[in-house]
């Protein structure tokens, strides 16, 4: 079988998804056997971002204008394009600045702004059509394989669209939110990690981002009733999901309160 051409593109992020993809996950040899890594900066400075690609994986949030142009070009040249990692899927860590005016952020970091051309941080799907989301920070292994095998077998991928609580209960964990009064973001967070943090008796901090139609204001209210400070509640909803409609609703509610 001919190997499929794969491109891995990095925008504003820690490059952790590239690293995860190239070295860490369980089936690196199988992935290498099925895909030709035409472009991945982490492994080689060679290669060209010019396609065509059978599959493009895009990590990182879009925070500069040139990224938009390149991303659109990649989309045109790729049969399938997946956003990988929280930054690409929901904005993630780079999107923390989404709630602050852009110029304020630039001034805080740089002395000379003449060469700085940052734009508001957005997820990849703000600019191009995406065939699927491999969520998480680091990304969910199962979802990565689902994306890759779906491309290899020509089917539509299937990603979970429910809360962390379902995965958590399937594992039989005692609920840390109810039993231990921890401000767990699980109820509004999209599944995929297998409830990693709650399984370690820690509150979920929503690195997978909001699940579709999540009712985050109701959870923010609950946190408030638990005695969590206003600032901490805002932090919880802006750590990864500051640029998402679902979590913005909670933040707006807290601000208005």
């Amino acid at each position: 079988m001919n190997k499929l051409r794969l491109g891995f593109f990095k925008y504003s992020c820690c490059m952790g998804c590239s690293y995860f993809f190239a070295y860490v996950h369980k089936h690196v040899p199988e992935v290498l056997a099925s895909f030709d890594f035409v472009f991945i900066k982490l492994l080689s400075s060679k290669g060209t971002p010019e396609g065509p690609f059978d599959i493009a994986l895009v990590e990182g949030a879009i925070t500069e204008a040139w990224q938009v142009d390149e991303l659109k070009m990649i989309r045109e040249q790729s049969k399938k394009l997946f956003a990988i990692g929280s930054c690409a899927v929901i904005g993630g860590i780079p999107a923390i600045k989404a709630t602050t005016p852009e110029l304020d952020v630039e001034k805080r970091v740089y002395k000379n702004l003449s060469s700085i051309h940052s734009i508001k941080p957005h997820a990849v799907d703000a600019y191009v059509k995406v065939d699927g989301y491999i969520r998480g920070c680091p990304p969910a292994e199962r979802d990565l394989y689902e994306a890759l095998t779906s491309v290899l077998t020509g089917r539509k991928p299937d990603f979970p669209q429910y809360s962390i609580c379902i995965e958590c209960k399937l594992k039989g964990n005692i609920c840390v939110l109810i039993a231990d009064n921890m401000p767990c973001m699980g109820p509004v967070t999209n599944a995929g990690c297998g409830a990693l943090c709650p399984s370690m008796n820690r509150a979920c901090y929503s690195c997978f981002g909001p699940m579709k139609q999540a009712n985050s204001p109701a959870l923010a209210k609950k946190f408030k009733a638990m005695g969590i400070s206003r600032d901490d509640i805002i932090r919880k909803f802006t750590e990864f999901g500051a640029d998402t409609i679902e979590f913005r609703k909670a933040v707006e509610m807290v601000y208005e309160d």
Partner: protein
Amino acid sequence: MKNPLKPIKAIIKGIRPEAEGVKTYTLSTEFPFVAEPGQFNMIGYPGVGEAPISLSAIMQVGDSTLRDGSFKHTIKSVGRVTDFLKDFKKGDELFFRGPYGRGWPVKKAEKKDVLIVAGGVGLAPLRPVIQIVLNQRESFGDVSLIYGARNEKNMLFMNEFKIWEKDISLYITVDEVSDVSKSPHPPFTKGGQGGITKEWSGGINVGLVTDLLDRVKIQPERTIAFVCGPEIMMRFVCRGLIMHGMLQSSLYVSLERRMKCGIAQCGHCQHSGLFVCKDGPVFSYKEVRGLPDGAL
């Protein structure tokens, strides 16, 4: 003990493109497959999952339509499973299990007038009913089919209309004319606003299925209606027929729901205590009218 969820292998004996994005797959398996009209199978493929698909042709008990025990599914590629099937070829394997559910009460319709109303791919589950009618024409009174689709590109079984119209009255309508010049079936007649309603032999009306209800002669007390299509269409067709004096209990509809098991376990198709997979998919309108979260 055999797991009822265990899929059975079937071979694709033939594929016929039916309409835009719709193909009819003739399948056969190791044993002669028998089912009731209106029943469905869970069609699937490993790695892709399963989806409930109604049968569009079956070997019926005491009937000879498909003598060899093969069966047909007419499938529109829209979801995960159905989209995957679109690239299948003759000779390929796929998996199914079934038949499941309660079908159309054809026995009840004998000696009565039968009104079949279908929209879009909703004609597929009614095709076995039409086959029975054609095979045992003398058992039924007047039989009419009112069929509507978005446009003639989305219309199923057009090649069979010629045969059907010998025995049953056909009323065909489209929501919109997609491309008059290229249409092989002129002329279009205006149905909605007092125009002439043509029975088939090439004539397609423009307008909703419900517009045609007024043009079919219905004797409410001796008619039984089988309706299948988008739920919102079934709602208006049923309400229209009730206006014509038909009883809720002589109207039958077939519901489409998400299903994972088909055997009243997975719970996806539940509505107010009913399992659509087991208690349906065919219900009398009386049973499902005003069903919470439905459109009927």
